């Protein structure tokens, strides 16, 4: 059945899938110009705030997909789910909007010299939504559960290297790793839940909002948690309305049925008019033509480089979002400032003549043709595919766009690796460079592009075992350089993310990961 562009909606929906896992999703979106702009602490920098914040009010937020995977903070599949649950659950630490990890349930953390042991001092008096006080026992239960201690698999990938979680006294929990990994802290953002509880059955966390009710495919209601340990939320409650159609979500904003919607397209935003404030960020993902490096003709680096010269990223961004978005040159997005290497963006100039030359050198003087699989639920990727196909045509390469639904994409393309090229956005579920770069090691289970480079594998091994932050950062940058030089994929951009708020609503902040922090949003007078 075809609907009028259901773009946004669905899109999101599905797409988001990504999350925790590994990421690849087609659509996560999320965020951040604030971050890239030099405006450290300001929500106001975007002109988002007009008027003084007032306490109270019921905020209505439109989201495109229901949380139909889970309410379990350790088993989040879709980015859309993570975005909502961020307000309900908190880990020992949590990300702030600048991408730093700040203490949450823990008050402080001490990382051992060797980088293989984390000692957390718990914050005094943190309450669960059921009124109980968080104890060391709850923390041990939650972290062990996420790490899969006593089970054969971790619930959160990457946590399997945790070998023990122990409470040494009532306020102290020690997490020990089997190998050094200073990035583990980013995974300890995993939600803390009451000992023995099953979050699929009872949704109890420590976040600024508590879960109230849901109606499948209709709405989710969360309410301000009065006993929250940190800065309390402004609004009394947030009602997420699930609206899958892009037109409908715009109509609902205009009619007054919604106060805030994220992840809009430029076309949708242009329909809104003056009653709304629009914030412009990026989604924190790397959109690229991902190439199957193991199949003809993409197993030839010359071919990949040739195509990289044939793509004009600016044209794509102009076409998709009036120039919004941020160009990328490797598998890292700009909001990840610490690791992003801006020079790589210009690694391949737009030069069709050179592209033709390289193709001829590689033995394809007359070009070739290939199939590009694109998930049909995310319009920006489809639009991108159309522009790319045109651009490649100019150098004699014909790209056939094959639209498939998200499920099919997941099983055939992503897991089955049965494709030539595909256009999606890949994100990092966790705020670590590792989450972005590990997938390109030769034997990574999620290396869906079949990239293989001995140098890359060695560099990666060196990076993850490194306990010096600066040195590690350099190694991560080197990994990105290898990906760019090898033209592992045809890197395009970090898509723009537009958030619309009714006038009289303010405080929305972009994060460098895919979340919407409702505790900072407020009504003004």
């Amino acid at each position, binding site marked *: 059945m075809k609907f009028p562009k259901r773009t946004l909606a669905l899109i999101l929906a599905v797409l988001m899938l990504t999350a925790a896992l590994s990421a690849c999703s087609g659509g996560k979106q999320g965020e951040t110009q604030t971050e890239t702009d030099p405006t450290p602490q300001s929500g106001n920098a975007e002109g988002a705030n007009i008027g003084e914040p007032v306490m109270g009010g019921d905020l209505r937020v439109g989201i495109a997909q229901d949380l139909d995977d889970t309410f379990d903070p350790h088993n989040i599949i879709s980015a859309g789910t993570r975005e909502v649950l961020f307000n309900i659950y908190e880990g020992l630490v949590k990300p702030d909007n600048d991408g730093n990890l700040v203490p949450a349930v823990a008050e402080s953390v001490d990382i051992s010299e060797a980088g293989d042991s984390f000692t957390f001092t718990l914050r005094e008096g943190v309450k669960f939504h059921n009124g109980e006080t968080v104890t060391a026992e709850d923390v041990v239960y939650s972290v062990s559960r996420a790490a899969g201690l006593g089970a054969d698999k971790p619930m959160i990938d990457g946590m399997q290297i945790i070998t023990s979680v122990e409470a040494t006294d009532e306020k102290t929990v020690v997490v020990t790793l089997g190998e050094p990994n200073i990035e583990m802290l980013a995974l300890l953002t995993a939600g803390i839940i009451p000992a023995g509880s099953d979050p699929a059955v009872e949704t109890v966390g420590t976040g600024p909002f508590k879960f109230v009710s849901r109606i499948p495919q209709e709405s989710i209601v969360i309410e301000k948690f009065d006993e929250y340990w940190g800065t309390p939320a402004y609004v009394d409650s947030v009602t997420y309305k699930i609206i899958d159609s892009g037109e409908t979500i715009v109509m609902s904003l205009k*009619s007054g049925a919604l106060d805030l919607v994220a992840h809009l397209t430029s076309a949708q935003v242009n329909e809104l008019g003056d009653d709304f404030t629009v914030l412009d960020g990026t989604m924190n993902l790397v959109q690229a033509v991902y190439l199957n490096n193991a199949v003809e003709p993409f197993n030839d680096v010359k071919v990949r480089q040739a195509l990289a010269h044939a793509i004009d990223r600016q044209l794509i961004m102009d076409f998709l979002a009036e120039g919004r978005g941020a160009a990328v040159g490797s598998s890292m997005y700009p909001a990840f400032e610490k690791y992003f290497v801006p020079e790589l963006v210009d690694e391949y100039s737009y030069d069709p003549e050179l592209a033709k030359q390289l193709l001829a050198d590689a033995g394809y003087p007359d070009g070739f043709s290939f199939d590009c699989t694109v998930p049909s639920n995310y319009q920006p990727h489809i639009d991108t595919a159309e522009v790319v196909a045109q651009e490649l045509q100019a150098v004699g390469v014909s790209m056939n766009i094959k639209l498939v639904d998200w499920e099919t994409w997941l099983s055939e393309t992503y897991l089955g690796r049965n494709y030539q090229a595909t256009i999606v956005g890949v994100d990092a579920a966790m705020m670590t460079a590792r989450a972005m770069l590990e997938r390109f090691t030769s034997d990574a289970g999620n290396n869906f592009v079949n990239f293989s480079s001995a140098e890359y594998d060695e560099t990666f091994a060196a990076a993850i075992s490194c306990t010096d932050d600066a040195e590690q950062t350099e190694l991560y940058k080197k990994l990105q350089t290898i990906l760019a030089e090898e033209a592992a994929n045809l890197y395009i951009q970090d898509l723009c993310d537009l958030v619309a708020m009714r006038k009289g609503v303010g405080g929305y902040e972009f994060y460098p990961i895919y979340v919407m922090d409702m505790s900072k949003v407020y009504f003004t007078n």
Partner: protein
Amino acid sequence: MRYVLKKACVFVATLLVISVFVFLAFQIIPGDPTTRMLGTQATPEKVEALREELGLNAPPVLRYFRWLKGFVTGDFGMSYSYNMPVNELLSGKLGITAALTVLSFIMVVLISFPLGILLARFAHSLTDRLFMLFNQIVMSIPPFFVGIIFTYIFGLVLKLFTPGEFIHHADDSAGFWGYLFFPALAIALPKSAMVVKILRSSMVSQLQEDYVRTAFSRGNSHWRVLRMHVLRNAIIPVVTFLAVTLVDIFAASIIIEQVFAIPGLGRLLLGSITGRDLPVVQTIIMIIAVIVITVNFIADISYKYIDPRIRFR
């Protein structure tokens, strides 16, 4: 009576055939429920464990009969996505979609019968021609488009309702029907146009019949002839069409629900197909099948009452 029995057997047989197709469809299309449930976290072991847990590893024939047995006994299974029984999930949604369908159907009848009769009465006049032209246009506009126009005009400009702010029946009955009014009308307009066309042409052809001349010669008024004689004879094709229309309306409401943000079956069906939430999808499709077949069954039976000359065999 025998006719009814025979029809009932066909009814059951049809449902069985449909159930096989529904079941087969999701065996064939790519995408496994576990892939969606595990997303990019999937590993072969995790997939295997989950398949086992969901009972997907049993042979298809066995799974089909398990499902069929559950369906017949009213146990539709647990939704994969929502962690609740399908019954519970559907109960609220079905009512909303049914209300929308019925309201829309009533509108079709209320709009099309008077118009069709009127146009037949003044057939071939200028008004008739102009109207039929207009009718042709209305007929060809898809309901979702009418829906978008309505939300804009009646929702945003005239503010007669608030698009996106659906009201539950339990909260406010008047508000509920009020919210459904425009979506129902959006579906009803194109359908009404079709019924008008069929009714008018059916009546116009009946007007050529001898019995009409006889009726006039007995001194009946024009209206009386139309109402008492012509309509009765002209209505058979219309009833057949109305049965089809009711089913169409049901299908259209699934789409219209997206446009008006109505949390009915449609949203759930689409979400569940994408998520390969098989228990939910299969149940909804079977419910739709039951409705379609039932409506046609009723239409067949009703001919006899409309026209006693029809004999069932």
